[in-house]
Structures are given as C-alpha cells and as structure tokens.
C-alpha cells in the first residue's frame, strides 16, 4: 500500500475539532492533508474562557489555542469565514459558496446553536446569544454605554457567567430564570440558594420562576415583560436558555440524526467515511455541552481516523462555574430517592455547603458550594464507583481525613491514587502529571506544556502546583506571583507597597529592603523603580537619568538608525504662523529628512542627530515652543476639536479645555504614556472615547471617561463622572491621573490598571469621596512644582552638546 496522504475535511473550527487535529498530528503525522472550514472568521480559541474575556479578566489573544503559525506548521488549509452549504456523500465533496472540496474522510464538528425562546421581540436588535467571540464582543460593546442595563434570560451555567461578566463591566444586570432555583440541572435547591445570595451580594438582580412574556421595543430592545406583568428595562437581552446540537447540515446530507448526529463508539456516523465530534453529536442517547466529554470524543475520533483502535463509552461530567470568587462544584445525580442516602455538611458563617448522594455505598452525586477543593477527589470516587463504606464516617471532610491522615492539603494530594483526575477539561490524571514531573517538568509552565493539565479553564492550577510541591519536595520553588525581574522575588505591587509603607526614598533603599540579588538592578526593574520613587516621593527622590530608557534620558525618540525625532508641544493642537515658521526654519537648518504630522495633532521632525538636539531645541525654545514629551511615559497630547469657537454643533469650548488640561498636566511622569482628548459634542471628532482620558462636552457640561485604548487592544472608555463646570472636570482628570500614578504597575496603560482594580474602586476615590479627590489633586499639583519644567530648555546649552558629542575622535589622530 502506498503512503499518499488522504484528504481530510473538517467542518467546524472549534475546541472539539481542534483537539481531533492535535491528536491526529501526534498519532499519524503526515497521514492526512487537512482542510478546515469554520463559520467564524478566525481559528480555534478556548471557548470556555469567553467568560473571563467578557468580564475583562482576559483578552481574546490570551485564549487563542491555535494560531496561524500552528495551522501553517501542520499544513492545515484554513477556510475560516467560509460557511459549508452542503455535503454530497455520493461524490464525497463538501460544497461552499466558493466551490467543492473533495474528501476521503470527513469530520463534522458543527457544535450547537443557541436556543431562542419563541416570544415576541426575539428578533429585535439588542437580543444577543452567548456562544462565540462576536457575541462576547457585542456584549462588551453594549456594556460601554454608561448606566446600561442588561437582562439575561436563563440562570444556568452560561447565563450566570454572562451575568457576572456584564456586571463586572459595569452594567446593571437582571437574571430571569424559569425554574425555582438557579442551575437546577447541576445544583440542589440549597446550593442554588447560596449561589443566588452570592450573586445578589454582587449587585446582580435574580428573578426565579420568571416566565418571559415578551421582549419589548420598537426598533431595538428596551425591556422584558414577564407573564406576571413585571417589566425590566434593558439595553441588551442575553438569551442563554440552552443549546441544541447543530445538525441541519448532517440531516440534509442524509446522515442518521436524533436530537444530535448519531455516532457509534468510534465516533463514526451512519456513513463510515464521516465522523462527528462535539456538541453536535448524540452518543448512546446523550448530548454533551461541556468540554471534557468533547475532548474524550476528539481523542477517539482522531484514533479512529489514524486506524488505531479506540472506543468512547460516554462521559460522567462535573461542572464548575467560572465566576471569579464563586466556588461551586457539581457532579453526577443528586435527586433524592428511596434507595438513596445523603451526607450534608454546612458551615453557615463561611457560606460552605457540601452534599454527597450515596446509593449502595457508592457516591452517585456531589454538590459543593463555597469550598470545592475536594471536588475532584469526590468526582474520582464517583466515576470509579468506589465502595465508600470504610471511610463513610469522615467522607464528607474529604481526603485529608480519609484514613485518619492529618489535615494538610499536601497530604490530601499525596493520598490521591494515580488514576485520580486532576484536570477535568483535558482529562489528565495524577499519574500523567507525576510522570511528567519525574521526566523533568519541574515548573507549572512545563507541566502545562507537556500534559495540558490546568491549561484550559485553569481551576486546577492549585492542585497541579501542590502535585509539584509533593513530588519535588524542597526542590520546588513555588512561583508566588510574577516578580518584577530576576533581580528580586517581589512583584510590582509588593514593591509599590514597600516603597510607601517603609518610606523608601532611594533606589538603594529599595534594593536593600527588597533583598535585591543584583548590586544595581537591571534594565527591567530600574526604570520601574525610578518611576515609583519619583511618583511617591517627589521631594525626597532625585530622578536618575541612567535608570531611564534612552528616549526619556535624551528627551527625544530614538529611531532605528540611531537618529532622533523632535516633537514640540502644540497646546490642544493649536499653533500659529510664527511657530510653524520656526519649525520650518529648524527643519531647514538641521537638514531634517522627514517632517510628519502626528496623530496627536502636532509636528514630528524625524532624523535629527543626537549632538544636534540641544541646538534645535534652543531654536524652537526661542519661538516659544517646548518639549511635547512625545517620548515620555507621561502626558502626551490632549487632542481637541474646534468646539464652540467655530463649530455649529459645539456645546462647550473643547479647545480651551484641552489647552487647560495640557497646561496643567504637561511634564508629569506616569506609569505609561497618557493620551487624552476633548470633543465639543457627542459627534466626538476628537475621538475622545478611545483615549486614556476622554472628555465629551454636552449641553449640561462635561462627561469625563477613562481607560480607553486604541493600540494593541482597542477599547472604548468608561464613564468616570459628569461635571457641570470646567474646574470640576479638570479636578476629576487630575485626580484620576494621580491615582493612576500612585497605584498602577509600571508600563500598564490606564485601561489595564483599571481592569485590575475595578472602575468602582477608582470612582470611590476620585468621584464619590471629595476629600480623597482633593488630596489626590493636591499631591499632583505638588509634584508638578518639581517636575513641570521644560527639559529642552534645561538641556539646550553647550555643556549638554559637549556631553552628547563623541568624547574623542581618534580618526583625526595620526597612527604610529
């Protein structure tokens, strides 16, 4: 038999088919030439991590599992965004808009469709499902509107994760659930109650027993009306009532389908050349919507394709809710029955609830709330059908007590058998992890890389770390949190606390107090420390130019050929003929090769030699121009539109406010660069809503919003506060920037920092507490008395020219 590659076509580029391909390339490299169709215009990402993306705890980039390079490496022909319209099994082709694709083997992994309840208004704009990245982005976009309200229909796993994410995004969230308690398929009423309390304490409104009558609105969603007449206002309605296997394509192709696409234990459909995996599948009467069974199916399907014997016999599933701070675990069947007994543990003050359902001395169901550390242990006993009569007395206390061993989490992990499952998402058991550790995977990253354990939802990371500790003993150095650099074990947050609490005012003091392992730090920690010290102790600390990156040390941006760029400040984007003449003269005099208008409404002179910088600055200074700090982790520009002076739509003097902000804040150093804008009306010509700080003028005053981004990430700003006067708007901005200066990690832009501390935390200090705001403003203004100096004027002299010129020119010396 010749070894020519067979043609494999895969429909659906989700997690199940991704795992099929991974396994297939391991088991039978080169055996198949793969074409992958995906309805979404992107490759495979970790769909179960959409909730952290929605809540802002992760970015899309962080959850990508297969990038373009991976597909390229394995020769996968990716046809993303191209929907498959039909399958002709007699000719073995898949049909799309662009034509036909031949296959020898076909894998269907079309996943599931969200269920839409058939009520009036279900098709209105603003009704969103929660299945993919586009849905997630639509919800994130909706949450950007200040004071926006969301109604989530469905109090199951998906709906609650959506609700928690939208709440974290600042929306007012109501969850409508048809059944009497939340997550009734996974939780008993007691745990459902604890969950409801927990979510309510986070400000999420929960309405159980809610029967949706209609979704209201004329041109877009405005609310939801229940059968009992209750009405909730809504800017968006998230429909998360369930999923249904997506089988339309398979049905049309004449494949046997029930609720889902029928497959046998080898994942083969009624056509022996067509396999199917994932949420679209029905196996032994079961359809699955959780990731672990999908992965099990995927492995079997890949082996079937590779000609290796494998068999899928169904999965017992467990559930964890991915809402930060909510610990919930559920597995098996926990309905009461005549033959069933239960063991319950409650600790009201800690909000802990555990319940085991036992039948014939075996665990058949487990529900845990508040403390789920033992979940995997119970789940292992459940799946293995272990007889628990021996340990029944202490069973509920978990493995730490089983057999009377001491209460020590390490002992609990050590006591687990090798078959105990640690990572539910990827089906990795303890034995596989300890084998990897023995084989040299001595860090969490290495274990993840080799076994995938804790690589999906990440909730078992703690267990994997404990396994590392138990297996390696003292050799395992737990990575507490990520330290600044190799010079120290402290994190940025640790160091900022240390500097404030111990009043450390010099770099050496920080090195000493923080047990630095190097004598003078490195290029990573020193710029950070220099900023922390000057921000916290403007009077005591002396700025250290040798701890600054080249651009800030030289007050100009280095270019790839070693020359520099010069950007004078143009207050609010306003300039004069005189200034423009001075810029033109300087460009001529110093033979500037490129003159460019920047995105921040000013002019960049590119290609100036370092030794010419002081002289060109002197010329610009003479015309009244100062440094634009275009090189600084500091205030860059305040972009403005023309406002009431000229614009027929302008509501306030946006240019004037922009100039005032820039005059007040120029020269201040910040953890990363800060860009601002002021728009004179909501048409937003100055693009204020993607800046670090943006002001939108309205008839009634000023809307100050913060934490936008338009770089590697693109993000709309969030409303900080409204003010009726310019003075108050300025104070809000200054206080926000000072809070950022005092608390953010070096090189975190405001949007990253706000995502970590939360907008509520910021508002408490900047908006709601007038004393706190005033103190922040005072500290900023004080710092400005020291740092608001034109660095060009200070350096535009012969002394600096001399220092910045070569020390000697040996090419002029005669050689001996």
């Amino acid at each position: 038999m010749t070894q020519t590659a067979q043609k494999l076509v895969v429909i659906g580029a989700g997690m199940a088919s991704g795992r099929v391909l991974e396994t297939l390339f391991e088991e039978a490299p080169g055996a198949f030439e793969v074409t992958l169709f995906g309805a979404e215009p992107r490759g495979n990402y970790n769909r179960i991590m959409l909730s952290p993306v929605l809540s802002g705890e992760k970015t899309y980039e962080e959850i990508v599992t297969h990038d373009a390079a991976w597909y390229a490496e394995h020769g996968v022909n990716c046809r993303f965004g191209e929907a498959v319209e039909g399958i002709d099994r007699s000719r073995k082709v898949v049909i799309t808009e662009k034509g036909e694709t031949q296959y020898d083997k076909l894998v269907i992994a079309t996943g599931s469709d969200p269920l839409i309840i058939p009520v009036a208004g279900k098709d209105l704009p603003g009704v969103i499902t929660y299945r993919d990245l586009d849905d997630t982005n639509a919800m994130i976009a909706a949450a950007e509107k200040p004071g926006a309200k969301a109604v989530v229909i469905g109090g199951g796993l998906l709906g609650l994760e959506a609700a928690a994410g939208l709440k974290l995004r600042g929306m007012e969230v109501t969850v409508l659930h048809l059944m009497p308690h939340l997550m009734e398929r996974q939780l008993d009423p007691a745990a459902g109650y604890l969950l409801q309390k927990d979510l309510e304490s986070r400000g999420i409104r929960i309405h159980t027993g809610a029967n949706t009558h209609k979704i209201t609105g004329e041109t877009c969603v405005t609310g939801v009306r229940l059968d009992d007449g209750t009405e909730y206002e809504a800017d968006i309605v998230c429909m998360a009532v369930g999923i249904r296997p997506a089988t339309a394509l398979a049905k049309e192709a004449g494949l046997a389908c029930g609720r889902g696409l029928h497959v046998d234990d080898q994942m083969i459909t009624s056509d022996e050349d067509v396999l199917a995996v994932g949420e679209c599948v029905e196996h032994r009467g079961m359809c699955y919507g959780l990731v672990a069974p999908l992965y099990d199916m995927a492995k079997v399907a890949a082996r079937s394709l590779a000609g290796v014997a494998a068999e899928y016999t169904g999965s017992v599933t467990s559930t964890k809710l991915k809402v930060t701070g909510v610990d919930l675990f559920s597995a098996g069947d926990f309905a009461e029955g005549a033959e069933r007994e239960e063991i319950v543990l409650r600790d009201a003050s800690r909000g802990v609830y555990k319940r085991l359902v036992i039948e014939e001395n075996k665990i058949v169901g487990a529900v845990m709330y508040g403390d789920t550390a033992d979940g995997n242990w119970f789940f292992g006993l459940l799946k293995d059908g272990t007889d628990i009569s021996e340990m029944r007395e202490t069973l509920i206390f978990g493995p730490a007590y089983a057999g009377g061993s001491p209460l020590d989490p390490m002992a609990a992990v050590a006591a687990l058998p090798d078959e105990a499952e640690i990572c539910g998402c990827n089906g990795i058991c303890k034995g596989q992890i300890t084998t990897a550790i023995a084989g040299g995977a001595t860090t969490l990253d290495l274990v993840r890389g080799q076994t995938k354990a804790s690589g999906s939802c990440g909730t078992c990371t703690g267990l994997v770390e404990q396994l590392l500790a138990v297996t390696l003993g003292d050799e395992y150095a737990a990575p507490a949190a990520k330290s600044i650099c190799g010079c120290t074990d402290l994190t940025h947050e640790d160091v900022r606390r240390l500097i404030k609490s111990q009043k450390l005012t010099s770099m050496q003091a920080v090195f000493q107090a923080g047990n630095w392992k190097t004598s003078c730090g490195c290029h990573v920690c020193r710029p950070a420390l220099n900023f922390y010290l000057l921000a916290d102790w403007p009077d005591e600390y002396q700025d250290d130019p040798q701890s600054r990156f080249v651009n800030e040390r030289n007050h100009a941006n280095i270019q790839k050929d070693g020359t520099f760029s010069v950007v004078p400040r143009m207050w609010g984007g306003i300039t004069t003929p005189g200034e423009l003449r001075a810029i033109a003269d300087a460009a001529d005099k110093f033979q500037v090769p490129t003159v460019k208008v920047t995105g921040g409404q000013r002019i960049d002179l590119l290609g100036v030699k370092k030794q010419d910088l002081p002289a060109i600055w002197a010329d610009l200074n003479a015309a009244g121009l100062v440094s634009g700090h275009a090189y600084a982790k500091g205030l860059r520009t305040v972009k403005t539109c023309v406002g009431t002076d000229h614009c027929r739509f302008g509501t306030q003097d946006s240019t004037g406010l922009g100039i005032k902000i820039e005059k007040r804040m120029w020269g201040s150093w910040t953890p990363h660069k800060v860009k601002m804008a002021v728009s004179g009306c909501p048409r937003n010509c100055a693009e204020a809503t993607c800046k670090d700080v943006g002001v939108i003028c309205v008839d009634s005053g000023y809307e100050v919003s913060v934490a936008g981004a338009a770089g590697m990430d693109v993000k709309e700003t969030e409303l900080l506060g409204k003010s009726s006067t310019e003075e108050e708007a300025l104070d809000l901005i200054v206080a926000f920037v000072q809070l950022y200066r005092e608390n953010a990690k070096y090189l975190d832009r405001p949007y990253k920092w706000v995502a970590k501390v939360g907008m509520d935390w910021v508002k408490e200090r900047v908006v709601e507490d007038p004393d706190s705001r005033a103190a922040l403003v005072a500290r900023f203004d004080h710092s400005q008395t020291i740092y608001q100096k034109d660095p060009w004027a200070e350096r535009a002299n012969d002394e600096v020219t001399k220092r910045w010129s070569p020390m000697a020119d040996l090419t002029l010396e005669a050689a001996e």
Partner: protein
Amino acid sequence: MSWIDIGALEDIPPRGARVVRTALGCVALFRTAQNEVFAIDDACPHKGGPLSEGIVHGKSVTCPLHNWVISLETGAVQGPDEGQVRSFAVRVAEGRIQLDTSLAGRSAA
C-alpha cells in the same frame, strides 16, 4: 601595548557611556557603578542599535532598541540571544581613560 589618552573618568556618568570615533568605527566607553571602564563596539549585533544609549547594569548593557543584553567584559550577547561584539583594551590611570593606540588613525576599517 601603547595607550592613547581619551579623557577623564568623570566625563562619563556612572552607569553611563560615551562614544569615541575610531579607525574601527564608533566605540562605546562604559563606566559601571563600581567605576570600571569597558570599551566595546557601539553597535548591537542584532540590528545595530547604539549600545552607548543603553541602560548599564552590573557589567552588562541592555541595547536600547530591542533589549538584547551584552557583556561589557567580553562583548558576548547574554541569555537566550546569541552574538558577539568586539571588545577593546582600555584602562584608567590616575583618573584618565586610555585606549589602545591601534584604534587611532585615519584608515577607517
């Protein structure tokens, strides 16, 4: 070996650098926190970045363009990256910095 006077130690800031034009191209003179002086090529082997503009730490300098770290003692690139720049003989005598005379001359390499 014969030496040629370049300037005073104080002409270079501690943890800083200055450039000398030589027959072999620009050479960067570094002064560490411990007042040691080193001389290496002023061009990173990666993309030619001016090492004299980098941050000096210990006996290393970090290139300002892409953060390659180069040993001042040997000119070798440190860590995961690989490469080498030339290093040159330099000494400090009575507060004066002196370079190897062979770097002088009009015939640029």
